[in-house]
């Protein structure tokens, strides 16, 4: 059960981030945060297929995390998600064609080590 939930956190979470990144870049840049503009944004996102899959995937990942947190403690749940920083950086390079220099690689690796330590040291 635990491992099923971890898979349900990591895999949909990663897919969601990549799809949302693609979808939002196609949708155009968001600058306006007045309520009306946000409603218009939501309306246009509802027709965006990438975000349309990405957000439900995010929800699956989120509810799986909630479920996992209700049966285990934080120190078991969060280390599993630390790995996704490096994984998603690699996906950003190959799928999203982002230019990732040494600073980003080093940053992502150091952050995932830090997340590991923070969650293990509870």
């Amino acid at each position: 059960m635990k491992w099923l939930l971890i898979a349900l956190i990591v895999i949909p979470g990663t897919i969601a981030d990549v799809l949302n990144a693609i979808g939002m870049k196609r949708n155009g840049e968001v600058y306006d945060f007045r309520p009306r503009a946000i409603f218009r944004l939501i309306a246009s996102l509802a027709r965006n297929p990438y975000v349309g899959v990405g957000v439900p995937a995010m929800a699956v990942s989120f509810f799986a995390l909630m479920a996992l947190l209700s049966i285990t403690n934080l120190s078991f749940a969060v280390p599993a998600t630390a790995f996704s920083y490096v994984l998603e950086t690699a996906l950003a390079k190959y799928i999203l064609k982002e230019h990732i220099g040494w600073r980003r690689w080093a940053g992502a690796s150091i952050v995932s080590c830090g997340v590991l330590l923070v969650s293990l040291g509870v």
Partner: protein
Amino acid sequence: MKWKSDLRKGLLVAHVRGDSDELQLTHEFPAKMLGSRRSTATLAAGILKNQSQPLRLKTRTVTALLVASNVLGNFTLSRGLHEVGRLVSFSPWPYIHAFVNPLVVLGVLLLIVWLISQLSLLSRVDLSYVLPVTSVSYVLTALMGEFLLHERVSTERWIGIGLIGLGVSLVARTVPRTALRYHKCSHVPYEAAQ
């Protein structure tokens, strides 16, 4: 505007080729790129610089909003769910039942703010920039545990907090946007931009 996207694209290509975050170019280079004189290129670069200043500020603001709503949302939601009790089920009823709790509702509202700010950030900044930078939320969660909930923060946790801070400061110094844009731009003659 066409000249802006041309200039950005050119600088991006120079950035990718140079494999460094500092571009050592004279103004002759953007001038060639735009097909204009050096003085025009200087003006164009100045305009671009002035425009990117508030943009960077806005990116920071949205990042702060994202981190705050994430930390507070997770905190209130997990408090609320502790009151509701064990929650592993494939039927939707226990989840719907949980929505009677006010803390759960507040948490969900905060997480909606989080979702919108995350999407708006992703609309203009790299994923490989957003992810590490927003991991500040782990630091804030740990600090909130120490100072608000009076949980003890262990040595490993302090080291982890330091590492996250270091990683974030490394990534935050990179250029936030490196992937090429999809532009819907009108074609304006270069000289008109002056």
